[in-house]
């Protein structure tokens, strides 16, 4: 098997076999993280753009580490320092960076669909490192790798996601990936963050239920994904921070309701004492630091698959819509 797309924009269009393939290709890179010398020459002479139009520390450092361990160089664009502040359009910025002849374009943007838009205009592979509330494919993959390592399988697990689901691209990527392996989802949080419409976002037939009591959400859970609560969204009169803690915080007492071997994930950065207590975040059932290590391995696999070999990939967005027109004509019609 090979990865058939030119870009990695979303997990939604990928099949269970294709997702398994990417996870399998991440395994050799997990070994590299344990080597005394971690630098390969596989992508020597290649350049990866890290265009973070929205702030990020972990994801940007993780992609940067992945690129440099493969031997590639990186070009960094950060939101505060960029010419976006001076009014340049996204497309102009992308075209200007592309004119410096990089080989891959990793980008994060606050607008859903931004990576897809850029991918339609560039000839080089584009990796979505998070777009608005749409998807965060590399996070979905590293979560799945962590779950598979700890649980031995991705099949038929009870997955609970806690927090602000409606604004979470991480939750969407998790559901699109794990839903293809028969996982059942329980989404839990304050009603304003867990609208019933979310029950329909998974792959067809995926059992997703929205519940509003954390005790109910934790029962029988194999995996608990705790999302970061954006504290700026917690305020009177909708919901005070103390009320969130009282109603939804994952603490040791509530963890007794979950399965004994339930696994806890958090995409970071953690608000200690808000969505999760330190004892749970640092406890034996938590895999938050394994997630970070696996993040580098997954991102090395993504860069390897997109940048090595003479692949003739298609554009996943075109494929989803059933279009087959070549890149050039799609470009010309814009």
């Amino acid at each position, binding site marked *: 098997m090979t990865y058939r797309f030119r870009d990695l924009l979303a997990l939604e269009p990928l099949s269970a076999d294709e997702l398994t393939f990417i996870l399998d290709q991440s395994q*050799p890179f997990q070994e*590299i993280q344990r080597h*005394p*010398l971690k630098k390969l*020459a*596989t992508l020597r002479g290649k350049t990866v753009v890290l265009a973070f139009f929205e702030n990020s520390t972990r994801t940007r450092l993780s992609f940067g580490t992945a690129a440099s361990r493969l031997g590639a160089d990186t070009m960094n664009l950060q939101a505060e320092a960029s010419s976006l502040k001076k009014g340049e359009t996204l497309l102009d910025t992308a075209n200007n960076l592309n004119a410096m002849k990089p080989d891959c374009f990793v980008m994060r943007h606050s607008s859903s669909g931004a990576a897809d838009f850029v991918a339609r205009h560039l000839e080089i592979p584009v990796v979505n490192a998070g777009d608005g509330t749409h998807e965060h494919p590399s996070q979905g993959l590293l979560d799945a790798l962590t779950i598979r390592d700890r649980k031995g399988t991705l099949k038929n697990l009870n997955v609970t996601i806690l927090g602000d689901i409606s604004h979470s691209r991480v939750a969407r990527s998790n559901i699109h990936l794990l839903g293809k392996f028969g996982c059942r989802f329980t989404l839990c949080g304050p009603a304003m963050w867990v609208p019933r419409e979310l029950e329909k976002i998974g792959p067809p037939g995926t059992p997703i239920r929205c519940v509003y009591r954390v005790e109910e959400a934790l029962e029988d859970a194999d995996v608990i994904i705790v999302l970061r609560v954006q504290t700026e969204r917690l305020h009177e009169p909708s919901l005070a921070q103390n009320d969130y803690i009282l109603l939804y915080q994952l603490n040791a007492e509530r963890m007794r309701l979950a399965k004994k071997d339930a696994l806890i994930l958090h995409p970071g950065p953690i608000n200690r004492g808000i969505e999760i207590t330190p004892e749970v975040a640092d406890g034996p059932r938590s895999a938050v630091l394994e997630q970070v290590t696996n993040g580098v391995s997954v991102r090395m696999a993504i860069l390897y698959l997109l940048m*090595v*070999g003479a*692949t003739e990939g298609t554009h996943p967005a075109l494929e989803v819509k059933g279009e087959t027109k070549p890149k050039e004509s799609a470009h010309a019609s814009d």
Partner: protein
Amino acid sequence: MRLVEKSQLMSAAEIDRTLQRLAHQIVEKSGGTRHLALIGIRRRGVPLAQRIAQAMRGIDGVEVPVGTLDITLYRDDLSTVAPQAVLQSSHISFPVDSLDLVLVDDVLYTGRTVRAAMNGLFDLGRPKRVSLCVLIDRGHREMPIEAQYVGRDIQTSDTEIIEVRLREIDNEERVILVDRVES
């Protein structure tokens, strides 16, 4: 272009006898099995390394550690092979520092695989010595690389292919010479 089998070079019994001899030679030249470890190069070097280790158990009664190495990430032709080269896992669970490592592969040809394997090994540490053991040396080297332990030297033309078939991977056990013929 089609592939035609020209002749059988080794039978199952001959492969077995050759591996026994290679095991003896490695033990003799290394002055025993202390500090010795075998590294099988994926794919067919892996079962060969395991069988040599098994033969060594018969000689010295000692368990020689065996690791496996996938050289894909170290290849020098990754930008030209299409499509992607699929990665396999490497498993070397022991520290390689100060060890006498013997790389094991089925066929030595251009030497490029061995060059890649050595780069991979040196990312793991600083072995004391690295030597090379192959079942078949077919010539046509493109690198200054030689094997210290050779099962059989075979003269070939560059249109010919040597196929080592092992029961662990191919469900049969023999070495054959195949030729590319214009069809």
